[in-house]
């Protein structure tokens, strides 16, 4: 079953009295274990599309199925539960919770969203810490670790629930060249290990070159779909 199926997808915003078409009749399919990048200039609709796939924003028209679920039929709380069960997020600014330690940040979705028992949680979080190379940093607070380490924690948090899909909005934008490469490599490693699909919105050629499928957007329309990592 495809992870994402979009058909004639549209999103229109009202900017005052003016209707702005952010996404126009976009159709695509994303298969499981994909490494997909949405590219395009600012305002092309990348983030809007990612928000819709992430059940954060309902489409205005068309259909969007994520892991077999028509997301336009979900209300606010159902959408939150669906995200908690199936989708992980990695943000440009890492968005870790500052009052929680690295361990607790990764634990958060299991504890506050999925209500796992403590023992099971601890084992799972330790696995994830090890997987992202942060096994000895669990006790630290986000303010005590570097940007690259924060993004590793964010990746671990996105994957800890065994999400089928991880959405990453400009995940390397705030990282230096070397760290960005490490993060991309890490995400690919995670995809290989857990079979999770990764969808990026990005400007970063490093991400684009590593993507297996690239969707190019412009003015809300899908211009082309490329396979392979040779897109510049």
């Amino acid at each position, binding site marked *: 079953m495809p992870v994402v199926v979009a058909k004639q997808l549209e999103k229109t915003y009202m900017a005052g009295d003016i209707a702005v078409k952010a996404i126009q009749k976009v159709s695509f399919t994303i298969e499981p274990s994909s490494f997909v990048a949405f590219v395009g200039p600012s305002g092309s609709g990348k983030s809007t599309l990612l928000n819709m796939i992430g059940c954060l924003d309902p489409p205005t028209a068309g259909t969007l199925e994520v892991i077999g679920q028509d997301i336009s039929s979900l209300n606010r709380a159902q959408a939150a*539960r669906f995200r908690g069960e199936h989708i992980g*997020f990695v943000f440009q600014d890492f*968005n870790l919770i500052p009052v929680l330690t690295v361990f607790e940040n990764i634990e958060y979705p299991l504890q506050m*969203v*999925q209500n796992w028992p403590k023992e099971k949680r601890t084992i799972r979080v330790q696995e994830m810490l090890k997987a992202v190379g942060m096994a000895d940093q669990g006790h630290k607070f986000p303010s005590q670790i570097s940007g690259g380490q924060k993004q590793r924690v964010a990746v671990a948090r996105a994957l800890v629930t065994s999400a089928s899909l991880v959405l990453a909005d400009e995940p390397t934008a705030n990282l230096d060249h070397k760290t960005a490469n490490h993060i991309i490599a890490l995400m690919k490693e995670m995809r290989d290990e857990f079979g999770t699909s990764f969808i990026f919105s990005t400007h970063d050629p490093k991400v684009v070159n590593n993507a297996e499928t690239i969707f190019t957007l412009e003015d809300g329309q899908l211009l082309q779909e490329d396979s392979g990592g040779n897109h510049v």
Partner: protein
Amino acid sequence: MFNIFKLALRNLRRYMRRTLLTSSLITLGVVAVLLFISVAGSFKSMMIGQITDSMLGHLQIHRKGYLAAVDSLPLDRNLKGKQLQLIKEALDQDENVEAYSMRIKLGAMFSNYTETTNIRVNAVNPEQEMKTVPMLADRIIKGNKEGLLEKGEILVPELIAKGLKVKLNDTIVLVATNKDGSVNGQPFVIRGVLEGISGPGGRDGVIHIEDARSLLRTEGKEVSEIAIRLKDIKTMDGVFAGLQQKLGSLKNKMDKPIFEVHTWKKLSPFFNIARMIDLMTLFIKIMLVAIVLVSIMNVMIMAVYERINEIGTIAAIGTVPGKILSLFVMEGFLLGCLGTLIGVVISLVTIAVLNASQISFDFGRQKGLLLSPTIGVTEVVTISAIVIAIAVLASLQPAWKAARMDPITALRHV
């Protein structure tokens, strides 16, 4: 719930200075209210005790219409014979009644053989009276307090003793008119001088009830009023209702009520002062509620505003709106608990210190009254519950705003 509690606690620790400031405001309010309640309550209980234990008793029973004409101390509205029997039976059956005293109240002329003045006299059975108003003996500022008085003796109010320059063991004459209009005089030896206190009967002289009967030449045993002392003043309303039902329903041949029963509240103007104290306490409580409401709302609105991006993050990763709401409500709840806890501790310590300091004060003619503030568990629990409930209520609006926040807008917030 424990996870929400832990997260809320950490968020409060993150903004430690603000948490302390808000808690201090709540603490200040709680301390102000609890101290006011304890000190005002102490003053109120002391004044009520003075009035009921040295003068009025907790309840009084009269013949219907007596109280309306009490200024002229009418002798034709006394309780007698069968009426007294009915009242005695009712009082003897009530286990809440500790004692009762039968009194004749009369107006008379007081003469020291050179000068004459008018006096209001309370004629009592000393034994009954001392059981009913045990602090009466304490009002004797000159003379022997033991046994209150004997037949042929009088306790003279302080003002008359000074005005007519009479001393202990002097002989004076009381001249009174009975209900038939005949005038009679009788000599009395001054046994003591009574301190005057505010309120009805506070400046009356006291004689033996048998002397009053011979002075007024009454046939049979009749009395003007029956003062009642209860084992516990808290049972007063219940006893009052019971007596009202039992005695108030009795009618005479003209189908009119025979008796009237009153509590001290109806008999003393101090009740209005007591009500004013209660009203002031209510206003102080309202101020406390306002302080808590404004400070918690302010801090929670700030907390939501400062953590918009964080709210967006937790919403995006799947936290349902109800949990986000609970998180902020829990922060308000914890702030309320913290402020209340500190406030209660400070208040109880202050009350203990005030009691240990033995602070005395004067009220009217009464000197050296000892301030002994006390506060009941019920009051502490009630105030704490109000403060915590208001803290939760005040955090609801900001919490609701956080829970309803659009995750995309929140995530874009810088």
